[in-house]
């Protein structure tokens, strides 16, 4: 698949440079103003040197790997820095350390990175290879030949067969379908799974599959240069002295799959890297975490600190040389070169830069990468984030953002498919004043319907039933079986009044292609209750009513739109009666009822309230018997109006209004917009973790609010729900101001009266102030208002108001607006944002937010491909943030604190020693110790801590969401923490140096020999250091797994093993120059005094830390401390059953009507344009001549490409566009604009 491209770019999203390189390479070609392609003329086309169809995402080959990879690695600041150090070390005058002290860690770091890069590249090679060697049929010299994709050239004509991937961007020439139509699936391009239609020019479609004619085809295409606009193409085809204009509807883009079309021929216009798919690759921003940025700042600071130390020591050296060193000439003559004290100081500066380089930890970046990789794997491996029904595990698609998951403050969530399943379920109904759908036990109590326990109604009497349909109240079936006329009429209405297209692949296997899932749910319900909608023609609808085929004549569809909020059909039943069936929003429909219905209306209204209280979406149903005369009269008017040229819509609307009067109420339906599992609980939990959740949806206000209520984001007990829906800037401003005043007003009063000055000062900062507002508000803002509110003048007040509200819902927003809202918060609040969504329209916000999460396991993959993390269910977000994110953050912070501490403690000993060795850049330690300290002696324990540590276990992390707070406040690692831990390191180094110094002033061995020599001193301090940092990591480790034990004890053991090995006789005899410490370990570590010094040093370094931590935990216990104590206490008592809060919906709000969409399909149906000839169906429909658009019908074989509930009808309705499509277009454009 060319998904390779997407996958590649995402997997390698950090690799900007190589994509850039590709672009740079293509600049010459990209500058072309116009593209000329002549069919079947390779010689002509080669003159322009267009890119061939070979894809190369891999960066290296066997020969270039080493140089290019090294070049890239040395572009990184840290690596370059160490390279410079290495070069410095080769200058004998300043080389205070042997070359190997730097080169060993550097090589190790480079090697690890190179291996990683090489593996990545190997897989890229493999996928490139796989794509490049795909076969396609190319027309060469009048014959169709199989060629590899990479050999396809611009101007070739290639043949595609059904279900094949399109090899390059093609101009469709002809296809097997009539009128040169062909169908493609563009999931790889834009994530939409529905089929799209493409049509060839008539002149070219006449070529058919006549190879000879095609080979003679010599049209020349003049078109735009390669670009990344997926939905635009402009060009002209010149052939036989005629010019034909070309647009996107004639293009097949690489990455699409041919569907429902036996074959087609296309002319290659763009190939390889110039295809629109590839031009869209790699345009992802590289996201970095705030810790990353902080780390870079800190490294720069450390660098500055290093230079300061170097300068201090260099000055010290200059003074020393003048005061002391010049007199020491007797025993240490210099070369003439260094005779000048200032010059000596200059050299010393560099020498100290070399020695002290370990404060900038070389292994820091690699270790951080390793940790993040590990954390990502833990996310991938988590079974609690694995969705078994779709077999989808959670996936960390980027490995660089983990710790930021522990700092999220704002979540921006899509609604459809994210909070909701986008599955509508017929849940309850009210028929003629009686409700159905609730189950009562023998005591008359309502039974909580859960899937497992409550028995479902048996629909086996109905052979055409949908097996997935569940209904629990058997009384409704009884009513059907008793043939109660109104119940029958109710379901008849549901089966007739809709715009669904049925599809029957095999006998009895019905699939409904519904425009909105609500309709699908209603018709499916009718189907199960014995009113099966089986087939339709433009003029008839065939139902199977309780097994009997009944054909209704469809006379008119009074279509749905947003103003009418209802739809009706007028049918003639077999008995010849004329009936109008109508369904719509209750408020609308109730106004149009017959006065005699008033009592029923009140009952039904009560039921509707009840349904709405449960968060269900409701529709009212009504019908009317029509008089033949009245109808004829009306029909004439309708026909007249439908041909009107101006104000047609209004005229039609008025006519519809006229006939939809005096209807009789049948009842109401209640549809559950099924939330994803655990959504309210998750939202409640995340809210407790002080994460603000904003819902950004393209849905309309009512639906969004409805979901808000059912997710418990909106509640009845909220003080005010502000709805901003102004159409002009001023209106919006006014509405926002009013809202702000309303929120601020009472609180302000409270402050001025209740609290004294001191406290008001405390609350002066905005963020604290927000939290002091006890009253709960919600803000709902409409898309068109949002457009105004996002303007520069209003955005501040928008942010103010929004952040004062507990809940923010933005509805009818475009994808661009979603991104803008995220951007707004990023800019104004400096908070970590997370965007979660499932569809192509969420891509922009997913890319904009600090962290993007995609819901996987859905059909479209676009959101997932753009995301940083993906999983199948919204509720996993809770675990991702509160468990994985929190742990990652905690681990990373502890890791960094310890790492800096360790390196300072290790390195600064040299600084102190400088004052006692004439600032000569003499190292304290053995050079091998310096080499190995960071990479061998102390690397693994801290990695183990960084990978496995758990301050609080997962149950408690979830149970106490406020444990998440420290991450949001950035408390665990910030500049202050950095200072604390470096200060600790400095103190430790001071103790490490001066205690042995004091002890060794006069020390001798117990055999009288002297011991205060350089080497013993080095071994004593080094051993103390290793022990101290091991004890310290032990203190920092909260969670000692076997691995931690193994690494900590192992590191100590390895230290002593290596120490003795390096100080052994054997290794000295082999390399006398490299191991001058021969015998030091033996001679010093057998002395009691050395051990006494080590013990003292360790205790002095560690005890204050223990005391400080203990007292701090006692005086100012953090939430974490408390929970840890609690956790320990419970562990001792044994596990307790946890009663997790169940979130109950408390809303009693009247809900929205259940139409999710816009203008209906009425016209399409009556025109018959979307009718097709089913091959397996028993009946055939006459071909219908449509009034506009295509001049014929396409026959679609093998139409069941995917048995989705999505509306396949849309595929054929090129005249109509759902809003989501339009918004998706916006996405692409917006992204391009970025």
């Amino acid at each position, binding site marked *: 698949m060319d998904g390779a491209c997407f996958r590649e770019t995402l997997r390698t999203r950090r690799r900007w440079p190589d994509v850039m390189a590709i672009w740079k390479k293509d600049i010459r070609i990209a500058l072309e103003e116009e593209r000329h392609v002549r069919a079947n003329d390779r010689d002509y086309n080669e003159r322009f040197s267009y890119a061939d169809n070979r894809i190369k995402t891999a960066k290296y080959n066997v020969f270039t790997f080493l140089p290019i990879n090294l070049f890239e690695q040395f572009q990184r600041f840290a690596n370059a820095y160490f390279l410079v150090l290495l070069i410095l070390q080769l200058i*004998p005058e300043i080389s205070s350390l042997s070359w190997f002290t730097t080169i060993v860690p550097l090589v190790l770091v480079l090697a690890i990175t190179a291996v990683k890069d090489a593996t990545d590249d190997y897989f890229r090679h493999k996928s490139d290879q796989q794509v490049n060697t795909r076969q396609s049929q190319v027309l060469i010299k009048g014959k169709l030949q199989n060629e590899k994709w990479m050999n396809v050239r611009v101007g070739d004509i290639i043949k595609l067969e059904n279900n094949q991937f399109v090899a390059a961007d093609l101009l469709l020439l002809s296809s097997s379908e009539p009128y040169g139509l062909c169908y493609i699936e563009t999931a790889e391009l834009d994530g939409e799974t529905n089929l799209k239609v493409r049509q060839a020019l008539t002149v070219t479609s006449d070529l058919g599959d006549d190879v000879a004619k095609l080979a003679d085809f010599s049209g020349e295409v003049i078109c735009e240069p390669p670009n990344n606009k997926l939905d635009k193409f402009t060009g002209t085809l010149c052939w036989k002295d005629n010019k034909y204009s070309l647009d996107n509807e004639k293009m097949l883009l690489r990455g699409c799959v041919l569907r429902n079309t036996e074959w087609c021929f296309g002319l290659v216009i763009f190939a390889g890297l110039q295809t629109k798919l590839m031009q869209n690759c790699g345009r992802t921003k590289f996201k970095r975490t705030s810790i990353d940025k902080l780390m870079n700042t800190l490294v720069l600071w450390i660098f500055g600190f290093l230079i300061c130390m170097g300068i201090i020591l260099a000055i010290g050296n200059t003074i020393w040389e003048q005061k*002391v060193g010049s*007199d020491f*000439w007797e*025993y*240490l*003559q*210099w*070369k003439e070169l260094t005779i000048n004290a200032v010059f000596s100081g200059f050299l010393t500066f560099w020498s100290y830069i070399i020695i002290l380089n370990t404060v900038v930890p070389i292994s820091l970046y690699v270790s951080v990468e390793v940790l993040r990789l590990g954390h990502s794997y*833990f996310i991938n*491996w*988590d*079974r609690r984030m694995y969705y*078994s029904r779709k*077999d*989808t595990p959670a996936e960390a698609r980027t490995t660089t953002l983990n710790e930021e998951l522990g700092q999220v403050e704002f979540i921006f969530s899509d609604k459809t498919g994210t909070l909701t399943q986008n599955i509508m379920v017929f849940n309850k109904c009210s028929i003629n004043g009686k409700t159905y759908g609730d189950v009562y036990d023998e005591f008359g109590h309502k039974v909580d319907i859960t899937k497992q326990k409550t028995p479902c109604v048996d629909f086996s009497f109905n052979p055409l039933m949908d097996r997935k349909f569940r209904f629990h109240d058997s009384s409704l079936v009884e009513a059907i079986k008793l043939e109660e006329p109104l119940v029958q009429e109710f379901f008849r209405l549901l089966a007739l009044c809709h715009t669904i297209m049925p599809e029957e692949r095999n006998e009895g296997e019905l699939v409904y292609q519904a425009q909105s899932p609500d309709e699908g749910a209603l018709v499916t319900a009718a189907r199960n209750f014995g009113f099966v909608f089986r087939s339709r023609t433009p003029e008839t609808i065939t139902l199977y009513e309780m097994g009997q085929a009944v054909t209704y004549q469809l006379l008119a569809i009074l279509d749905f739109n947003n103003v009418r909020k209802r739809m009706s059909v007028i049918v003639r039943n077999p008995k010849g009666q004329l009936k109008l069936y109508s369904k719509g929003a209750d408020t609308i429909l109730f106004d149009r009822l017959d006065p005699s219905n008033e009592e029923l209306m009140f009952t039904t209204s009560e039921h509707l309230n009840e349904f709405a209280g449960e968060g269900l979406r409701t529709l009212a149903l009504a019908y009317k018997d029509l008089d033949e005369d009245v109808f004829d009269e009306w029909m004439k008017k309708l026909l007249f109006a439908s041909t009107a040229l101006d104000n047609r819509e209004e005229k039609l609307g008025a006519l519809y209004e006229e006939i939809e009067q005096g209807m009789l109420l049948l009842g109401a339906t209640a549809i559950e917009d099924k939330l994803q599992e655990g959504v309210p609980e998750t939202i409640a939990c995340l809210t407790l973790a002080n994460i603000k959740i904003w819902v950004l949806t393209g849905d309309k206000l009512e639906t969004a609010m409805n979901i808000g209520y059912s997710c418990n984001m909106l509640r009845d007990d909220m003080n005010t729900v502000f709805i901003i829906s102004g159409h002009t800037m001023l209106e919006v401003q006014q509405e926002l101001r009013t809202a702000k005043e309303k929120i601020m007003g009472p609180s302000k009063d409270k402050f001025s009266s209740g609290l004294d000055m001191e406290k008001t000062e405390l609350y002066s900062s905005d963020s604290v102030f927000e939290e002091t507002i006890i009253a709960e508000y919600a803000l709902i803002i409409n898309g068109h208002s949002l457009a105004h509110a996002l303007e520069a003048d209003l955005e501040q007040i928008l942010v103010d108001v929004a952040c004062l509200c507990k809940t923010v819902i933005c509805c009818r927003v475009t994808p661009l607006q979603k991104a803008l809202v995220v951007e707004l918060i990023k800019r104004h609040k400096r908070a970590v944002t997370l965007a979660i969504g499932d569809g192509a329209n969420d891509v922009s916000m997913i890319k904009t937010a600090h962290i993007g999460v995609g819901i996987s396991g859905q059909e479209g993959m676009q959101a997932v491909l753009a995301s940083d993390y993906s999983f199948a269910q919204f509720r996993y977000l809770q675990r991702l943030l509160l468990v994985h994110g929190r742990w990652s953050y905690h681990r990373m912070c502890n890791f960094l604190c310890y790492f800096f501490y360790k390196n300072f403690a290790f390195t600064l000993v040299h600084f102190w020693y400088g004052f*006692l060795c*004439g600032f*000569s850049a*003499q190292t304290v330690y053995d050079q091998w110790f310096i080499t190995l300290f960071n990479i061998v002696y102390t690397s693994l324990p801290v990695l183990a801590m960084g990978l*496995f540590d*758990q301050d609080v276990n997962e149950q408690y992390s979830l149970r106490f969401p406020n444990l998440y707070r420290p991450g949001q406040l950035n408390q665990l690692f910030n500049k202050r923490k950095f200072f604390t831990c470096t200060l600790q390191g400095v103190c430790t180094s001071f103790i490490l140096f001066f*205690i042995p110094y004091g*002890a*060794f*002033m006069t*020390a*001798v*061995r*117990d*055999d*009288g*020999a*002297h011991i205060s*020599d*350089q080497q013993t001193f080095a071994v004593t301090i080094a051993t103390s250091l290793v022990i101290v940092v091991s004890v310290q990591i032990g*203190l920092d480790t*909260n969670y*000692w*797994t*076997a691995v931690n034990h193994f690494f900590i004890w192992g590191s100590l053991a390895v230290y002593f093993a290596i120490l003795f090995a390096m100080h052994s*006789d054997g290794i*000295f005899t082999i390399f*006398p*120059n490299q191991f*001058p410490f*021969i*015998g030091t370990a033996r*001679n010093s570590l057998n002395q009691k005094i050395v051990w*006494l010094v080590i013990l*003292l040093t360790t*205790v002095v370094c560690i*005890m204050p830390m223990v*005391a400080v931590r203990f*007292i701090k935990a*006692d005086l100012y216990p953090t*939430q974490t401390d408390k*929970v*840890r*104590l609690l956790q320990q206490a419970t562990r001792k008592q044994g596990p307790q059953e946890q009663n997790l809060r169940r979130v109950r919906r408390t809303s009693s709000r009247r809900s929205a009507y259940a139409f999710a969409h816009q203008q209906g399909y009425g016209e399409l149906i009556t025109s018959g344009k979307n009718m097709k000839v089913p091959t397996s169906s028993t009946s055939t429909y006459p071909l219908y001549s449509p009034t506009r658009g295509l001049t014929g019908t396409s026959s679609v074989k093998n139409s069941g490409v995917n048995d989705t509930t999505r509306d396949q009808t849309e595929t054929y309705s090129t005249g109509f566009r759902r809003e989501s499509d339009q918004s998706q277009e916006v996405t692409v454009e917006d992204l391009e604009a970025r």
Partner: protein
Amino acid sequence: MKNEGKSAQRPDNTAFTQQRLPAWQPILSAGIVIPGFLIIGLAFIGIGIGLFLTSQTIQVQEMDYTGVEKDSPCFRCTIPSNLNCTCEVTFSLSTLFTGPVFFYYGLSNYYQNFRRYGVSKDYNQLTGDTRYFKSRSPEEDCSPYSYDSNNNPIVPCGAIANSIFNDTFELYQIINGTKKQVPLDGRGISWWTDYNIKYRNPSPVNGSLAKAFDGTVKPINWPRPAYELDLTDPNNNGFLNQDFLVWMRRAALPQFRKLYRRITDGDYAAGLPAGNYSLTVHYNYPVLSFDGRKKVVFSNVSWMGGKNNFLGLAYLVVGSLCVVMSVVMLVVYAKFKFSDDDDA
């Protein structure tokens, strides 16, 4: 698992992948920390008292003989022109100086730990590898003590060897006005590993160590070449000369003492009896140019080595602090533990 294929991507259920590895989760609780501090504190006080008392029993006789003051016996030797100067330092012991007595020389303000001083040697040479006598190993930097002014290779090369301490001492007990020489034992004063492994003499040529040094010159400051360092003992020559080995083990700090001799033989095996002593110093080693000091130290040792008050005091201080901290923590704990209820 219902279906292998359906759950193909289900993550493994292991303690490792699910982060449920069994673990020990220690908490710094009062029950551990406070008694811990107390125990460590008491232990340290104990060790400190032990160290301090031991240190007090060690006798030390320390004498600066640099000759800075005009009335000091070695003042005249500080005049650079005065070669082969000998001076005499007298001291008296009021009690028996228990043996074995160790005789150290000490230098201060002397930077044996200066980096360029420290690197100025060639281990290849010092392992007796004659290949490196004339050519120099590339990694090593003996300059400017690599070649003499006539470009002859110096062996042993480098600043450390060149600057070997060359004052010599003779100790006499003055008994009734007569000097009785105290025998000084110079054997085994260096580390065993230095003498037996790290430093090797070149193999003698025709039975003569001197021949092995053919073609090389002595270090500039040395009065005699390496193979004639000890004229009294032919086995104590070359790179295996004990004084040389002691010198080559560089001191860590600018103030240091190195073992010169042991007093273990004959009448003085039990120690130096009370009385008057005279130390004859062959004053060769100039230190005044860099404001250095020279001293001699007589000391005996205990299980913990030489006299070391620092360590004993440090242990006492740290131990006391630990005890104090444990009390402070106890107070803090008692006061705050019960004050706020666990609202976690």
